[in-house]
């Protein structure tokens, strides 16, 4: 698949396997750019916990930090998500084709 390598794609999946991180991603999707404290204010977790999740998401390339004066704002960079969706579409399409051939074969026998 184009863009991300297989291990990078694995990193995206691993980062999103955690339900709390998915919650962080949802919050980021609603707001353009937020600080860790801002996120902690709306999610049931401490600022430190949010910072930890943000750095895991950053390693997977799903969020990007930007310094603005004294604070760091995070925004969603959804390209890796699109790659993950593409993986599912690709794998799903291959099974669709295979199972269609299997059904045909089963009917013939």
């Amino acid at each position: 698949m184009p863009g991300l390598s297989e291990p990078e794609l694995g990193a995206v999946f691993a980062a999103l396997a955690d339900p709390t991180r998915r919650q962080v991603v949802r919050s980021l999707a609603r707001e353009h750019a937020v600080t860790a404290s801002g996120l902690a204010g709306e999610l049931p977790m401490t600022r430190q916990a949010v910072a930890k999740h943000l750095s895991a998401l950053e390693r997977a390339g799903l969020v990007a930090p930007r310094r603005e004066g004294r604070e760091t704002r995070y925004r969603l960079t959804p390209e890796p998500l699109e790659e993950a969706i593409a993986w599912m579409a690709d794998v799903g399409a291959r099974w669709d084709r295979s199972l269609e051939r299997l059904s045909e074969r089963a009917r013939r026998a």
Partner: protein
Amino acid sequence: MPTVRREVVLPVEPERAWELITDPYELEGWLADDVELAPEEGGEVRVAWEDGERREGVVEEVDEGRRIVFTWGEQPSRVIWTLDPVPEGTRFVVTERTVAPVVGPRMAALASRASLCPA
């Protein structure tokens, strides 16, 4: 982990369905163009398609006539095939899901982080 799940009801008895999903000759008629699969624990899986895509892996689990589990691919994914008798024949369910990556230090760090983080 993202999962792909598909199912189909085959108009055949479970015995015939098992043959269709484990006999390499049958598998080459639907799964891929070139298939080697030893339906036993630890058995090798080698699959190639005409479009150049190829996967290699290993059989992890076999429940004769009912279920076979294998992993394949460079960034491995686990494939689970199950058969269930239904009035119309045999239901075949396919599930494919990426396996937690264990390639390279960055991935390992991320994987351990994922399991250590409270939900």
